[in-house]
């Protein structure tokens, strides 16, 4: 992979939340493609380029990962731990997007290397605002780390 990519990987198991995210992304005009996986195992497979995600053209490395913590089988924090353990993924932007505002979860997420921690808002309007801010800050203002590394 030589060109920096703009795909956003959403790791979320709740289908309603997935729908809302997709809709708001559309509404705020996020052009970047949104890839979705429903659990931690798939997330790891995607990022590792294994299994059904082996084709990196079809499943390019994402510029940003939106990670829910309440996932089946493998907890979101474990996925985060896994991501940071891979040398090639260490600088990948991972933003936790979850319903828990538990200070313990927040602290642990940052300790494990999350770049940001967001709590899913309750109203749709607020979700839209969040999505817009997400995109503006992380995809436009922020300079992402270079993907080309030996």
């Amino acid at each position, binding site marked *: 992979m030589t060109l920096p990519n703009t795909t956003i990987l959403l790791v979320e198991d*709740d289908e*309603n*939340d997935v*729908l*809302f995210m997709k*809709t708001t992304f559309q509404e705020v005009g996020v052009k970047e493609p949104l890839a979705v996986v429903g659990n931690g195992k798939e997330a790891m497979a995607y990022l590792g380029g294994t299994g059904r995600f082996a084709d990196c053209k079809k499943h390019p490395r994402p510029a940003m990962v939106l990670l829910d913590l*309440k996932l089946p089988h493998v907890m979101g924090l474990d996925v985060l731990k896994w991501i940071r353990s891979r040398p090639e993924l260490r600088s990948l932007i991972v933003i936790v997007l979850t*319903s*828990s505002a538990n200070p313990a979860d927040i602290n642990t997420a940052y300790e494990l290397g999350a770049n940001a921690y967001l709590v*899913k808002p*309750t*109203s*749709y*309007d607020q*979700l839209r605002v969040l999505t817009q801010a997400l995109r503006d800050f992380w995809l436009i203002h922020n300079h992402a780390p270079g993907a080309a590394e030996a």
Partner: protein
Amino acid sequence: MNHQNATGNVIAKRPSGRRPQGESGKARRPRRKPKVLNAEGSQELELLGAYQRQMCELEWSVSASRQKAQKLTAQLLEWQEEQAHFRDHFEYAPLGYLVHDRSGDVSEINRAAASLLGLNQESRSRVSLAQFLIPAEVRSWLQHMARCAAKLYASSEFTICSRSGRQIPVQAISSAIQRPFARPSLSFRTVLIDVSQRRAAEAALSETQKEYQRLIDTVEGIVWQADARTLDINFVSGYADRLLGYRREEWTRSGFWQGRIYVEDRERVANELVRALAKREGLTLEYRVVTADRRIVWLHDNVTTIERNGQLGLLGVAVDITERRKMEQELRQAHDLLEQRVIERTAQLREKVAELEAFSYTLSHDMRSPIRAVQGYAELLERMGGETLEPEGVDFIHRIMRAAERLDLLVRDVLNYSRVASAPVELKSIPLEPVLDSIVHEYPALSPPNAEVEVQQPLPAVYGHEAFVGQALSNLLTNAVKFVPRGKRPHVRVWSESARPTDTDLLRKNEPSRWVRIWVEDNGVGISARDQQRIFRIFERVYPANKYEGTGIGLAIVQKAVERMGGRVGVQSVPGQGSKFWIELRQPAG
């Protein structure tokens, strides 16, 4: 020719010639002056001279004899005086004095003896001691005399019957009168001492001692005395027998009482006693003793060291505390059991509470997902439907959204409450002014033009958990601006004061903590006395949701948060005249 001078001394006067005269008038052998005469005359003169010489010598020896006689007489008088002197000693001696022979016939008797025997001056003579003895004692008297004759000394006690009929106990001390060159004694001296007073005193003493003994025996404790050197008992009260079953006589046997002490306690008791003796101190011992019927009795012994006649001794009173120890043991066991139960129950309770808390936390969390879905779809629906929807349909959608919102609020509040109830508390010093500042910033409802919140500075720091302090104050403030009559502008005043120590502080007798009371006063609708209790309970609301929004958890959260920091909450209010809520928190130390 001889004459007596004034002092009665015979002075020999020389027939002729001068002679010196001294005080003593001693006769001097005359000195002849030689004279010249004829033969016949000188023969006659010689005869005369010889005659004169003889006469002089005769005079001299007579006067010498007379002088001797005078000397002897003088000495005799002296001796007679002495004798009279000693006679007086004898006569007036304070003890009865008799001189008598072996059979008791009295040859000499002094005044005291006479009075003892009831004799007057006349009947003094010719008495015999035998007359004064009571018949039963005659034999003893004979033995006494026999002893005296053999050993030259004897002392015995008799009862004599005086002439006046009185019976008097006496002590007779007899000794044989020794005469050189005499046959074995015919005379004896006897001193008679009236011992009736002594006997009476002895009897009284004995009686007192018996009474004392009886008194000691009634004490429900073992009164004992022991020798400090050997540790052997020399006195023990009757209770020792009653309590332990060993007779009084047994206790004084050497090593007896040490042997009755329970084996495990022997060494300790011995060591303590030795230590106390070395320091001349008293001590208290508790130890076990084995009774005659093989039971164990616990004794509480108060021991003191005493000194009598330079001899060190131990004195103690031992009381039976077996019952008490048994009860102490039982109490301790019950206490331990109770503590054990408390620990178990507390652990159980904690488990239960933790379960409940985890349950409610998870539940509230999991509930928020579907709530999010409902809200989200409702909004999308509204957006999608837009123009095609009937106004009624739009209204329904809005109601769905509001219901979902309300549910979300409830869930969030329950989440908050359960977090406040279960989160680990970290207490530290929290300055209040920054907390209030950030609260006012966070809620637009607390700032002009919506409301006026006046914070009277300075506000002290409190000792608490940061999140809880913030939560409590923000709930109080948002309440304060919420419950105002429509149209009225909310005005809230916040200030602090020192509070009195609480009753529990006084009960615990710790140094009373210093407390801070923070007041939040509003110009709202006020709360009736009946409602003032209710409002702190979960989900209790005074006003329905259409009047004043809210879930009814706000104050419950305040109370829980403050309680977890060790403080109290309260309210003072009159309906229509606003309310004054207060929370009391500790002041940080120092």
